[in-house]
Each structure stands twice: as structure tokens, then as C-alpha cells.
């Protein structure tokens, strides 16, 4: 598992770790049931404090991405892909609604908006 942390980023280090593990799971790079390093091992490898990796793992556990078994370690949880997809779709819908509201405010037509979207999507 490769994780790159930036010390100069505004995003706290535990969030950087949690987000990178999440995206590795969502893209399928980390498969269901795969073992991930213990938080102590990860802290050593990243040269950061244990409490930071602990917090990252706690966040990942809370949001259901990983689970831990005492004495055995942490593993990628069974992902209900449909649920994840649905969650993402909800977010996209919300964001698109905001786009539509903004477009209407300046009189942008659906055609124009679709064209804009097409250009951005293919970038």
C-alpha cells in the first residue's frame, strides 16, 4: 500500500491517509478482505506518530471501509458497491442541481450547458 503524505498540506495527515486508503479501495486497488498494515507499522513507515495512523484507521472503520480484529490486524471491509454508487449518485445529483440553478440565473440554455459539460468531461 503506497501512501504519500504532505507535511505542508492544510489537510491534516490523518485525513490524507484516510482519503488515500479510501480511494485505493474505491478504485479496486485494495480488494475486499485484503490485509492492510497495522497502524503501528504504518506509523513507522510513514515516520509519523502512532496516534495519527490510529485516528486515520478509526475514521476508516467508522465509515465502514475497513475493520480490525485484535491481534490479527486490519482488513478491507466488504464493500457494498451498490450502496457506494448510490451515495455518489446522490452527491452528483445535488451538485448538478446547483449547476442548473446557477445556469438559469444567467440564462444559460440546456444546450449551452450540455456543450460546456461535454468539453469539460472530455478534457
Amino acid at each position: 500500500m503506497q501512501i504519500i503524505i504532505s507535511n505542508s498540506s492544510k489537510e491534516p495527515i490523518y485525513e490524507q491517509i484516510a482519503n488515500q486508503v479510501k480511494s485505493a479501495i474505491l478504485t479496486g486497488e485494495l480488494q475486499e478482505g485484503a490485509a492492510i498494515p497495522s497502524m503501528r507499522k504504518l506509523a513507522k513507515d510513514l515516520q509519523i506518530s502512532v496516534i495519527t495512523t490510529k485516528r486515520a484507521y478509526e475514521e476508516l472503520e467508522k465509515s465502514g471501509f475497513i475493520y480490525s480484529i485484535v491481534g490479527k490486524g486490519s482488513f478491507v471491509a466488504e464493500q457494498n458497491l451498490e450502496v457506494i454508487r448510490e451515495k455518489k449518485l446522490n452527491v452528483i445529483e445535488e451538485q448538478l442541481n446547483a449547476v442548473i440553478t446557477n445556469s438559469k440565473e444567467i440564462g444559460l440554455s440546456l444546450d449551452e450547458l450540455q456543450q460546456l459539460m461535454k468539453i469539460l468531461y472530455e478534457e
Partner: protein
Amino acid sequence: MGNVVELKNVTKKFKGFAVEDMDLQIKQGFVTGFMGENGAGKSTTIKMMLNLLQPDAGEVKVFGLDYTTHEKVIKERIGFVYDGNVFFEGLNLKDIKRIVAPAYERWDDKLFHKYIEQFDLPLNKAMKTFSKGMQMKASLAIALSHHAELIILDEPTAGLDPIFRRELLDLLQELMVDGNRTIFFSTHITSDLDRIADYLAFIHKGDLIFNQSVHDVAENYALVKGKLDLLDRDTEKAFVHIRRASTGFEALTDNSNDVKQIFGDNVVIERASLEDIMYYLKGGIHHG
């Protein structure tokens, strides 16, 4: 997980200096950094944890045990590293090992030789020929070779070069992969703590100012910068210390959420480094 060390209402008075009414807990399985300026009482506190000094009042418990009844059991489980050479300087490492090893039931000769090799130390040369870095490595090898659960280091990085300091931090991190181990580490070099500390205990003039996780410290403490006209008797209460200049003020807060509510976008709020915190707290905490 519980506390490995518990100090309750501990008081120790000297002429002109005192540690008074100190409550300090050290969490098992983590690294606690013990920071404070020179003379703040770090070594006095550590000596009481090791029973090298007895408090005038209060209670010291290590592994939940009392020194008066369990001194040997407690010491068996502690590894102590002190700034400087504590061994007789005419002795070599082989002699020192011969003296120290029988004191510990769990002394591990293999482990000792592993460290000697890793640190590249000569066994047959007198300690007085060792450089400061080598002396520190020798102390570490001796302290780590009996599978101690609690490792106490008093200013281990003082006077050492940056390369050795980093090697030491690597070694300590390696030790922490074992979840039962606890490290208590006093220093006034705050950059050492940035990397490995899980909890920070800050002592100032014999008082424990705080003992919080590094996340709590980062969330609570902040540097705030703004224009002078924002300050009045009420708003000043949000800060522990304010530095005024003709260009504006810079202040330390221990409650950054309060500051956000009071000043909103009118001030710049930045993360306070441990050095900032130490510097601004040198006058102690007194709001407003």
C-alpha cells in the same frame, strides 16, 4: 489502554524551585513527549518516576504499583536513558554489561549484541574514549536489552547532531511497533516531538500546563494575527499571550474555536508550532 505511570498531587520542594501538586498520567502504548524549558522541572519529575527522588507529598505509581513495595518489579520493566555518560568512564562496554546484566531477570544477551552491532560500538574501549553520540548509543543498548515495557529518556537528543537524532527517532519508532511499549521522552527540541509524539505534556516552572494528544493540541492552540483595534478587555480574554507591535498583534490562543467565533474573518488564524506554544507560554497562562 490504561496508564503506565500515574502521578497524583505530587509535590517536591527545593530551595527556590518546586514541582507542586502535579497530576500526570502516561498512556500505555504511546509516545509521550515531555517538553519544557531548561529548569522547568522535567528531570525532577522523571527522577520521581524512577524513585531516584522521593516526593514530599503525593503518590507515584508505575504499572499500577508502588515503589515502597515493588521497587524491583517496577525497575525490571523500565529502561532508562539519561543525557550523558552515567557509567564509570574507565569501564568498557563489556565490563558494564557484566555489571548490569545480572540485575535484570529478562536480560537478553543476543539483543544486546544486536544493538552493539547496529550502533557500531566497540566492546573493549573505555567509555571515556566515546564521543557523545556513541555514549548515547551505549546507554541505549544497555537500556533496551532487557525487554523494558516503559522506556524513559531524559533529553536523549541534547547535544547530538541531526543525523544521529534522526536515527534515534527511527529506532524509537521501531520499538513502538510493539503495541505494549510506552515511551516517555523529555526534550526541549520541539522538532523531535513533531515526528513521534502521540501525547504532549508541557511543564513550566514546576507546573504541568497541559497533557493532551497531539491532535487536541493542534486543534486547541493557534496563532492569531490581526489589527490592534480588535483588541479590548473582552476580546483579549481569548488569548493566553499577546504580542503587540505597531503593525498589529500576534497572539496565542488555547481555544481556537472561541477565536473563530469572536473574530470571524477579521484575523488570520494559523497553526501554532510547539515552539510557538513554548515561547508564548513562558509567562504562564493568564487570560486577559
